[in-house]
């Protein structure tokens, strides 16, 4: 790989664009293809398959062997609600490799003091999503308990194919949420993707324990699903 290829690859990764590098195993020459940019015709299919599976491996093309490495954007957690659980989750997420952003229009909750060192956007989610757009590599965690704040980002996350959409609230709270989302015109199979009550069922009680349950559920969604296309279970 030459330095220009390495720099272009790192720039794509920093810009949250998926990328594939084809390395000729004979010569070591590397070719970079970035999602959404032109890629030589003979590699288009291999690149699409690699982005879908996220799996690196060796391919043979025109009698030559290439190692194909896949670089998917680092997963991001977008938390709606600057609440106690979010404070705990904001501490844990970086250590497991997730970027994390907290959004809450309630400025009493969204204070720099409560979220030191955390990316915090004290705006309505509709506005925050213009700065931090949702994508397939984003997990949405809605924990305000307030339909005025939670519902729209949940709808947007389902539309954007976020690999995880979780919402805080009891079964009863969720049942009324489902009714509201139906009235917004969401299909039942989309609504069924919402994880609610949020978090793996480990009997979590404290905010920090609930944060662990949420983070574990996010990791499960990330590792057991086809992240590019969302719907297919891997196992």
């Amino acid at each position, binding site marked *: *790989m*030459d*330095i220009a290829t390495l*720099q272009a*690859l790192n720039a794509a990764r920093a810009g949250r664009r998926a990328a594939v590098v084809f*390395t000729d*195993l004979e*010569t070591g020459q590397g070719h970079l293809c970035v999602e959404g940019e032109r890629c030589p015709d003979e590699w288009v299919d291999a690149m699409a398959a690699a982005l879908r599976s996220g799996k690196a491996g060796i391919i043979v093309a025109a009698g030559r062997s290439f190692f194909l*490495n896949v670089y998917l954007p680092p997963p991001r957690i977008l938390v709606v609600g600057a609440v106690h659980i979010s404070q705990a989750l904001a501490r844990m997420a970086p250590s497991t490799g997730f970027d994390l952003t907290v959004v809450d229009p309630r400025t009493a909750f969204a204070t720099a003091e409560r979220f030191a060192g955390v990316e915090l956007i004290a705006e309505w989610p509709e506005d925050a999503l213009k700065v931090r757009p949702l994508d397939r590599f984003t997990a949405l965690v809605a924990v305000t308990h307030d339909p005025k704040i939670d519902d729209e980002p949940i709808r947007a996350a389902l539309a954007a194919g976020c690999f995880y959409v979780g919402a805080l609230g009891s079964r009863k709270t969720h049942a009324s949420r489902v009714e509201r989302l139906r009235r917004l015109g969401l299909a039942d199979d989309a609504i069924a993707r919402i994880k609610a009550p949020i978090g793996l069922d480990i009997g979590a009680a404290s905010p920090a324990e609930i944060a662990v349950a949420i983070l574990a559920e996010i990791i499960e969604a990330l590792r057991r699903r086809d992240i590019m296309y969302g719907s297919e279970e891997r196992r």
Partner: protein
Amino acid sequence: MQASIDILDPLAVAEAWVGEGRRVAIATVIETWGSAPRPVGSHLVIDGAGNFEGSVSGGCVEGAVISEAADILDTGKPRILEFGVADETAWRVGLSCGGRIRVLVERIGG
């Protein structure tokens, strides 16, 4: 303002090292069989002084990869290394987990 480099990101480290004028090799796991500690695509980066970041195994074969990298930095010729219990180097290095891996080592060229 330049953001600090995440030392857990080998490719970012490689770019930073090249920027400092260091010679840099990248080792990448290209195939695995059996229970391999790091998945295909994992990187280890090595400079001319033997400094390294990242991993291609759980620490079992990094030493051997680093010493091979010194050669590759000199010649510029990429090489594929294979490690496993059946390897003739098994007594020195090998994967205690019983798997086998192939590692591509290449120099970052100008």
